[in-house]
């Protein structure tokens, strides 16, 4: 069965590029455009991995991350923070909240993303 990946990303173009790339790789992609939608979707679907942006409208990524790691049913899902923030204090904060990894979008290609997913999913 195809692995499910949740992409939380408010930029429409980045979201569609990422989704397209993951789908060609054979993953099942679920998308959320903001923190609220992400939390709502997580109540129904349990993905194998979450790509989480930090600067999001309404509920931001740090808050979503906190909720994911507090909830018993989602706690174990690996979270890769995928943001264009990336100052040392942001990385530090995300790791403290339980993020598995931190990637600055502009510094990676989608091929790097695929590699990272394969590495995290084992």
């Amino acid at each position, binding site marked *: 069965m195809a692995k499910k990946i949740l992409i939380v990303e408010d930029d429409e173009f980045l979201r569609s590029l990422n989704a397209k790339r993951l789908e*060609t790789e054979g993953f099942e992609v679920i998308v959320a455009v903001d923190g609220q939608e992400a939390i709502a979707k997580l109540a129904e679907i349990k993905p194998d991995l979450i790509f989480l942006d930090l600067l999001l409208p309404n509920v931001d990524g740090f808050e979503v991350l906190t909720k994911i790691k507090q909830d018993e049913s989602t706690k174990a899902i690996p979270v890769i923070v995928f943001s264009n923030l990336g100052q040392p204090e942001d990385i530090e904060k995300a790791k403290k909240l339980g993020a598995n990894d931190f990637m600055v979008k*502009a510094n990676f*290609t989608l091929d790097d993303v695929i590699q990272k997913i394969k590495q995290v999913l084992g």
Partner: protein
Amino acid sequence: MASGQLNSIFDLFIFLFSSTFWLLVVFVFIIAAVFGYWYRGRSSRTQILIKEANLKTKQIAELEKINRELEDKNRELYAKEVELLMANRRLQSLESAKSKFISVTTHQLRTPLAAIKWTFDMGIKGQLGKIDEEALEFMKKGYQSTERVISIVNDLLRVDTIDSEKAEFYFQPTNIVTLIESVIGEFSNQTKSRQVEIVFKKPEKEVPFPEIDEGKIRMVLENLIDNAVKYNINGGKVLVELSDSRLNSAESSLQISVIDSGIGIPSGEEGKLFQKFFRASNAIKQEPDGSGLGLYITREIIEKHRGAIWFEKSQGSGTSFTFTLPLHHKKV
């Protein structure tokens, strides 16, 4: 006439020769002398007192004047202090505004840049459908340009982090040989396209692990080697040399040189090389894009390690950059 009365000249005469009379005379003289002396002393003391009083009055007047002047100066100083305080506050808020501006703009820039980069990358890799040779070449150029902008944005962010002292350093014993080899490995594509050869020379003996921030020193090596490759001639050489000759000096440290056979530094521009945003005129000619921040960041990082960095003309027209890394990190 009763006896004992001085009523005759004879009696007076007798009295004049009596001791009582002379005693009286002496007594009167003594009294006069004592009084005279006392009076003289008294008048001279009075004069001295008057003089002193005059002097004191003058001094008091002077002191009052000085006091007034001091008060004025004090007020001026206070005003200056307030001014300085305000200026400092303005500067701080300006600094934080600048910091915020940079972090917001860079973030806002990075999002569309990531989108452009991913699109080019997917296009080049054929993930968006088949494209012909010519289009592929253009897309590759597009990708490279995007990468350049991204690296400038990253440099701006780094400078801001370092300037605002936000950058944190984690010093740990690090295998410097492996680090250098890994950084050199990153340049394999670039050296191929530029036909530049990178050679690594290290001591035969095993080198101790210096206490450094690995990520930051990686940045330094990438910067220096990138410059050495970028500003080289086709078919040129880059020598990275690790030396332990300073291990027995007062402060044992390692020394790393990056020596190139490149275009060199124009005379007259040497002093500005480590300045923020400065780019040598011949470097701009060879490589129009660049932030002029690499060497500035490099020096900041080396100084945080309490090392030193300098450069010299190497053989021919090239340049050699050398920096030292103390083996042990002492907290300042």
